[in-house]
């Protein structure tokens, strides 16, 4: 599903350049649930941003679902993002003046799905995350866990190939975190490929594979036995 070869990325900071990713080789198969771990500054978010086409690589190659991601202009990148990827952010990034339903329907709007169909689909995904009754509420009327669930529903609505989550539980308490992870595991169970950036070991342990990043290189990449989040959720 994801193929990365010899990926380099550096940021210019004035005259100095900061080499963040120093040759990453990495591949993800369909249906995997991967945790990318590392301390802050290890380059894990940068990797995720490049995977998400929110940022561009300097060197190396990246292909997503056998499509080479290279030299994309903004329009093409936007179309690929819309088609291939779903994003879940630490700070939820819901549009605050749109209701939960409208937020979930937004990627479908950019897919040019008709309004009626869009709303039916969005409602279906809201139902999946257990928030059907909250469809007409604005984000500021929702709790953090609910917001993240709306964000996950939004990410899933476009039916992406890969779901990318950047510290999805970073702003949540542990109970809510487990609820969210339970949801992510269920989504993964139904065959979706998911990548999670996290620095919390218990969250990483709920994935099927853990990749450790340190100073811009992968230091460890192992498959683990998944801890089910459902046991922590009543």
């Amino acid at each position: 599903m994801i193929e990365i070869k010899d990926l380099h990325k550096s940021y210019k900071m004035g005259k100095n350049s900061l080499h963040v990713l120093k040759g990453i080789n990495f591949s993800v198969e369909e249906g995997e649930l991967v945790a990318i771990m590392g301390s802050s500054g290890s380059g894990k978010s940068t990797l995720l941003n490049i995977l998400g086409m929110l940022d561009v690589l300097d060197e190396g190659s990246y292909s997503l679902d056998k499509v080479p991601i290279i030299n994309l202009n903004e329009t093409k990148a936007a179309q690929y993002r819309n088609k291939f990827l779903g994003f879940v952010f630490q700070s939820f990034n819901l549009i605050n003046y749109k209701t939960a339903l409208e937020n979930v329907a937004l990627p479908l709007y950019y897919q040019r799905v008709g309004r009626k169909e869009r709303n039916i689909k969005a409602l279906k995904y809201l139902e999946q995350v257990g928030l059907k009754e909250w469809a007409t509420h604005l984000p500021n009327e929702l709790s953090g866990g609910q917001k993240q669930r709306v964000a996950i529903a939004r990410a899933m609505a476009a039916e992406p190939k890969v779901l990318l989550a950047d510290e999805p539980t970073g702003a949540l308490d542990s109970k809510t975190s487990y609820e969210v992870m339970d949801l992510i595991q269920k989504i993964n169970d139904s065959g979706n490929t998911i990548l999670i950036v996290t620095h919390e070991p218990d969250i990483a342990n709920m994935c099927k594979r853990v990749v450790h990043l340190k100073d811009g290189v992968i230091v460890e990449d192992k498959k683990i036995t998944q801890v089910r989040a459902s046991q922590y959720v009543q």
Partner: protein
Amino acid sequence: MFSRDNWKEIFDTIKKNKLRTFLSGFTVALGIFIFVVLFGFGNGLINTFDDFFGDDATNVFFIFPGKTTKPYKGYKSNRQIEFDNSDLADIEKNFTMFLEYTTPRITRGALVKYNNESNNYTTRAVAPAHQYAEKTIVMKGRFLNQEDIKNKTKYAVIGRLVEKDLFGTKNPIGEYIDIGGSAYMVIGVFQDEGGDNEERYIYIPYTTRQLIEKNTDKIDQIIVGFRPEIGYVGAMAFDKSLDRFIRDKKNISPEDQSGIFIRNVADQLKQNQQFARVLQIIVAFVAFGTIIAGIIGISNIMVFVVKERTKELGIRKALGATPRSVISTILLESVFITTFSGFTGMLAGIALLSSMGEKLEDFFITNPFIDLGTAIFATFILILFGAIAGYIPAKRAANIKPIVALRDE
């Protein structure tokens, strides 16, 4: 770009961001409103100037005799110049080419009585052509004619307000009134657009006045109407040669400022119109400045709007919004708001102007108006520049990497 879905999205955004919508809309509406009102006031100013001179013919010279201040050709200074009937005849004889009519005017105050009513009025002893010089409109009966002059009849044409004062609702035609001790028959009633004062005059034949004043042939003023075809330049030339002719005849030094006076209505009108035009240019300049201020205002708001929405745009881009759709979202929203509020401001301005009418006449503004073309053009300019002003930050926002936009707090 113009699908129903797109517009729905835009209306949703507008509806849910009322303050932002109000701010940009208000700026535009106010800009256009002030432009329309100022421009209308400029036109009102011109109307006032036109009205001032509209009640008199503009192809007229008024010639007044004065006192000389310089000795000339053996005459001492401080000599009172007087006109008489021969001057009138000489002007007519020498300037046939330019002339349309001439009339003398002898002005006297008099106590006027009818039955028990009496009042002081100003009488003007004139020739029939005076009617053209003052644009006198005869309401009832007739004005003086050549026969009256020849026969020195004791006929009077009275103003509308004289009729009202003395006769009330009674028909004055054929009635006799006492003017300064002699009886005159009222043969006509007139009105004049020059206002109330103009309608308190009484016109009598100048020959009658001269007969009463011991059969003199003196006249106070000469009024000369020239052919309009000679134009402004011709009028100025005529003014000059008339001045030279009278000075020559009356032995007044060409350098003497006060021997005679010629009031050239055409020249005055022209000067006043120029003054009004300059005022209008100033007003238009200020109005134009308002439009510029409006453009700057909407530009600032657009920069602010884009800044405020940076994160939202980042989210939208992460969800698959293309740069084109980002730009069109911002731009269509801005164009919609500016169009709607621009025309609202324009209509409000026009409504204010048309409700004004003559209420501001005390401030020299009469019937202010703006032609629809100018108003729509100004509105369109503001919309256009609002769109351009919106496009630049929108384009920049569309090109921000989503990751940068998302980081924006």
